[in-house]
């Protein structure tokens, strides 16, 4: 049975009924009943997903079956060849980099990986990258720059790993260097926030010419739980915090932080990964063509301006002297 989220309780009930029916001997009446239940699931799902609250979006973005980098590699790219290691300390498993072909064109893929089953989740450190991940990503991106290959980034991480070794080996420095150097990397960079955009851990590989975001992904300065613990002094206020942080795709589009929203199938990408990937494909192909058409100087200037303009459009602050 598919995993359902807490707010999908009505769907879970129908799914249980279907399971029970499926265990019975097959008759036309039984099949008709199952079909009926499936249609009701679709309609309930449609209703739920048309008006998700920010907190519900957080849950969808974190769904254990949400398709991530590995799924996109399978569906949209050919000839993926992973490259490992930061040539300094280790190979981080929470960020994956590699060469691939996209519609016949060589590209560099970079992205977080959270892992599927428990064993793999542990191997991937649940998508929490250590400094080596950010350094590996930059090393790979420099190769792409040298050989004029576009870079496609998939972002899905709760945060950079908050552990002793992360601090010892300078996770802050690793992220900072990426922010500075990605701004100047002379090759197209397309970023897709595909799941959780977890603060600096996300941004550390998310400076690009275009930043797209899947419909139910989130992108936030702090996880709602952390924000609730600090500002409300009560982690249970995560729902309120998710609301206040304006971390949904429509909110971020309005704030000028992302350049486009990539639609998802009703019920979220995890309910139909193939359809989800197809929509990503369309957006990616179009965006890559747009960015590739720009000359290097214009592209870099536009990339700078895009981030430079975040929070200065006259809506985010005022100059009390001139007003």
């Amino acid at each position, binding site marked *: 049975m598919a995993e359902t989220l807490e707010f999908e309780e009505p769907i879970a009930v129908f799914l249980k009924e279907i399971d029970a029916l499926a265990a019975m001997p097959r008759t036309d009446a039984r099949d008709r009943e199952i079909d009926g239940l499936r249609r009701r699931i679709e309609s309930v799902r449609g209703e739920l997903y048309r008006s998700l609250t920010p907190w519900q979006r957080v849950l969808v973005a974190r769904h254990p079956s949400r398709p991530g980098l590995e799924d996109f590699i399978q569906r949209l790219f050919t000839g993926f060849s992973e490259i490992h290691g930061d040539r300094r300390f280790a190979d981080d498993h929470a960020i994956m980099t590699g060469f691939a072909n996209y519609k016949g064109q060589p590209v560099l893929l970079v992205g977080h990986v959270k892992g599927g089953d428990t064993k793999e989740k542990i191997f991937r450190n649940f998508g929490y990258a250590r400094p080596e991940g950010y350094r590996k990503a930059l090393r790979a991106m420099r190769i792409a720059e040298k050989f004029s290959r576009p870079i496609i980034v998939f972002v899905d991480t709760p945060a950079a790993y908050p552990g002793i070794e992360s601090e010892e080996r300078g996770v802050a420095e690793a992220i900072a260097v990426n*922010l500075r150097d990605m701004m100047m990397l002379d090759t197209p960079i397309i970023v897709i926030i595909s799941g959780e955009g977890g603060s600096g851990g996300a941004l550390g590989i998310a400076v690009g010419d275009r930043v797209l975001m899947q419909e139910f992904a989130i992108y936030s300065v702090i996880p709602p739980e952390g924000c609730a613990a600090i500002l409300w002094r009560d982690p249970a206020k995560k729902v309120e915090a998710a609301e206040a942080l304006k971390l949904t795709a429509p909110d971020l589009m309005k704030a000028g932080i992302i350049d486009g929203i990539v639609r998802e199938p009703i019920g979220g990408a995890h309910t139909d990964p193939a359809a989800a990937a197809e929509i990503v494909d369309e957006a990616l192909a179009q965006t890559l063509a747009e960015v590739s058409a720009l000359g290097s100087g214009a592209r870099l200037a536009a990339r700078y301006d895009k981030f430079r303009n975040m929070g200065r459009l006259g809506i985010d602050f005022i100059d009390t002297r001139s007003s």
Partner: protein
Amino acid sequence: MAWFKKTRKPMAAAVKEKPSRVPEGLWVKCPGCAQVIYNKDLAANVSVCPKCGHHFRLTAAERLRMLFDGAWMEFDKDLVSTDPLVFTDTKPYKSRLQAGIESTGLKDAVIVASGAIDGIETMVASMEYGFIGGSMGVVVGEKIARGIERAIDARMPVVIVCCSGGARMMEGALSLMQMAKICGALARLDRARLPFISVLTDPTTGGVTASFAMLGDLNIAEPKALIGFAGPRVIEQTIRQTLPQGFQRSEFLLEKGMLDLVVDRRELKMAIANALRFMGATASAAPSPEPPVPVAIETAPQA
């Protein structure tokens, strides 16, 4: 560029300055050595305990007074956040802003100003911890980015004195993006071959550490400052053990290779000036050398 040439009267350092972090009264007990110190002695010693060297926190203005030879010119002092998210937690962000404005006399958590450091004209951004924990929102991001762009235009070195808990949650992802914005400006400063010295003071954490604080040509810290990405409590919760003594302090970061030097505040100004001279800056003249290729510089808008 008109916006830059428009001369404003250099502002006198002492005007409207808020009282120092050194508690009011005649005497103060040092948290470092428990000695009772005469406040005047402390003030005369740039708020460093004369007995044990404990560094009391400075306000942004005190910091500028300590670094600059004399008067400085402040930029963009009237930028104020509009509360872009209309954020409310247990109280409205607007009232937190108002409280910060009232207690510090500043409009947000940074002062950006140019002045002379041992004769070297320098652009300095000095963060104010008293303003919502020195947190970085759109105003801090904009002021620092403008400061860096002005420094590029005027071929001036940049010093940023960090004192911040990180990105400002109440401005959401907009505050996160200030990290990229400032780092982008620093990338241009770097291409223009102009010096950037990052001064890390207690505390420097979160999104400030993971952006400009770590990108100095030199990263200089004051002794025993808390410097890190994740907060100590978050790390303890993650690894479920207590952290070793001195973890995330300046001396720890120096040992781990993340800092160039740890300098006592009483020697900080000269350490910065010496480094700037190594980097080609000279007294009352623009630092050389010229960049190898002309650098495209975006024109900052009229504020």
